[in-house]
């Protein structure tokens, strides 16, 4: 595999990473909420898709029609009845509740589905690709993932900038107290934002499950990658999140080209090191405004 091909595959992988990061970025942007169970929710969604495809005998893409709404409702309820009670000047309760939730989800999945790796079979699309040159081929499915990520982010951006709900989201983000005075119910805003966050991470989880096999313990990896994409892109910037995901994807793909002892790990390590470099030299991220971290 050539370096050019590695970079192209990295850009495509970045689409998946951006999907991991979208929900984190949105929840942090609107309500400064950091959900440490985010990655475990992606894996939970992938397992829900496994069960849905098995029970209803449908394609993983069709299972999205079940999994995404279910997760969105779960997000709405979780925010309304649990997460909202932890929002305040002290970040500790929110960290504890979401971290605890993540560990519990992970172990419940382990208990119910066992530690065996699972995968989602989407048929021929998984293996088909477009050959660009002799060295470079673009897989249909990775391309679809990237397109999906872009569509999700464009749609969110449009919702935020053009709709009444989006205006309420932005107002709550800028100044929750004044937003309340203007008649915006911030609890309802929070719950709707978390519903969107859960829906996007559910989409990400199912795409991850189609792309590769997964196990119950992989949630933290998803969380860390999503978080890194958010920080590299710049906190609170949705476009930054897309770019952050792509930069991270390229770093991982290029890292995998480097021959070291355990080559499966080196891509992940490269991604982490790039993140630390950004943290050291540009802590506000590529697209972030200064002083928002």
């Amino acid at each position, binding site marked *: 595999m050539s370096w050019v091909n590695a970079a192209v595959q990295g850009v495509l992988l970045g689409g998946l990473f951006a999907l991991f990061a979208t929900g984190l970025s949105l929840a942090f942007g609107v309500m400064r909420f*950091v959900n440490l169970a985010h990655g475990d929710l992606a894996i939970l969604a992938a397992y829900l898709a496994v069960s849905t495809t098995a029970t209803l005998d449908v394609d993983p893409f069709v299972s999205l029609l079940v999994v995404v709404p279910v997760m969105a409702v779960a997000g709405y309820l979780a925010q309304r009845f649990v997460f909202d009670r932890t929002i305040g000047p002290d970040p500790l309760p929110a960290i504890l509740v979401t971290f*605890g939730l993540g560990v519990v989800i992970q172990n419940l999945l382990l208990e119910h589905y066992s530690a065996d790796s699972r995968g989602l079979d989407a048929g021929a699309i998984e293996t088909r690709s477009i050959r660009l040159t002799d060295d470079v081929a673009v897989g249909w499915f990775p391309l679809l993932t990237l397109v999906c990520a872009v569509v999700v982010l464009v749609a969110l951006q449009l919702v935020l900038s053009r709709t009444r709900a989006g205006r309420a989201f932005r107002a709550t983000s800028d100044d929750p107290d004044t937003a309340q005075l203007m008649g915006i119910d911030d609890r309802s805003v929070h719950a709707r934002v978390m519903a969107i966050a859960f829906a996007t991470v559910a989409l990400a989880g199912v795409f991850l499950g189609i792309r590769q096999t997964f196990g119950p313990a992989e949630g933290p990896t998803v969380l860390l990658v999503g978080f890194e994409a958010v920080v590299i892109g710049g906190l609170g910037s949705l476009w930054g999140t897309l770019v952050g995901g792509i930069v991270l994807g390229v770093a991982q793909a290029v890292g995998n080209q480097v021959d070291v002892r355990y080559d499966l790990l080196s891509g992940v390590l490269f991604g982490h090191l790039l993140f630390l470099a950004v943290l050291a030299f540009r802590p506000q991220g590529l697209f972030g405004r200064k002083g928002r971290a």
Partner: protein
Amino acid sequence: MSAGAHRISRSTPSSTAGLAVFGGLTVALATLPTWDPERTLQSPLVLVLIYLSLAQMWNLLAGFAGLVSIGQQMFVGVGVYALLTLAEDRGIDPYLSVGLAGLVAAVLSVPVALFAFRLKGGYFAIGTWVIAEVVRLLVIESDSLAGGDVRSLTRTSLGGYSRDARDDITYWLALGLAVGATAIVVLVLRSRLGLGLRAVRDSEDGARGLGVDVTRTRLVVWVLASFWTGATGAVILLHSPSARADSAFSVLRWTALVIFIAVIGGVGSSVGPILGVLVYWFIDEQLAEADTWRFIILGTVAAAMAVVAPKGLYGLLQQWRPVQFFPVRRRLVARDVPMEEPA
């Protein structure tokens, strides 16, 4: 009434009693090997004491310094691999190496802080987690550390000690770390540093305005906790003398469980982690081998506590009957003056 008629006191009758009970318990536990020759209590206690030590250090960071770390497994793992390197590869006495392992962790914690301290709150938590992953991956990739393989302390490093002596020393080290960790939290709280920490916790800007060097205060606590966590990691290896990078750097074992213990007992008090570790011990005894259920039960209880009782069991106890176990809170008391105010 003149100012000289008052003094600042930290002790109360209940804190004096608390110290006596704590001291008596420590003496009883220290002499355990003589009155528990079968080691029915001693061997399970080692892990309980290790968890108390880790939970107190996490409590010091999260409950007092506002540093909610999910990367503590990094310092445990570094302690484990430092001990393997020092004792197994370099032939230094394994028990002497425990302190050195703590030093290695403390030295590593400074550059870690350089990165992690740029993040706040929840993002600090994930940031420390990322750095812990980086260290784990580097240990796995490293040829000399061979973190991908199972490594153990062998006769070369432990040969000079009999099996009984090894069990006893490991137990005493665990006890020393647990009691020492509790003492550190109490002493830090009584010190000027502790006063600064609590000021920072309550209002960072306010504390800055009063002249508290926030970053330096946090750094001191961070390095101290890293030292202690690293030394505890070394004792974890002495207790079960083989390790792989994945178990030594396990976020579930060495950070999640520790957080659950601290949260259930009560974050932000010196007594909370002791109560928490007793709950952990009790639940663990009921569960035999089921690792998953231990995480599910403790995780659910801890998450629920964080919402309904953020101060943990200790906080609930305080609501029910306010008692002080350790002399940490400053009170104004009258000195040799009748309590009744003159008319």
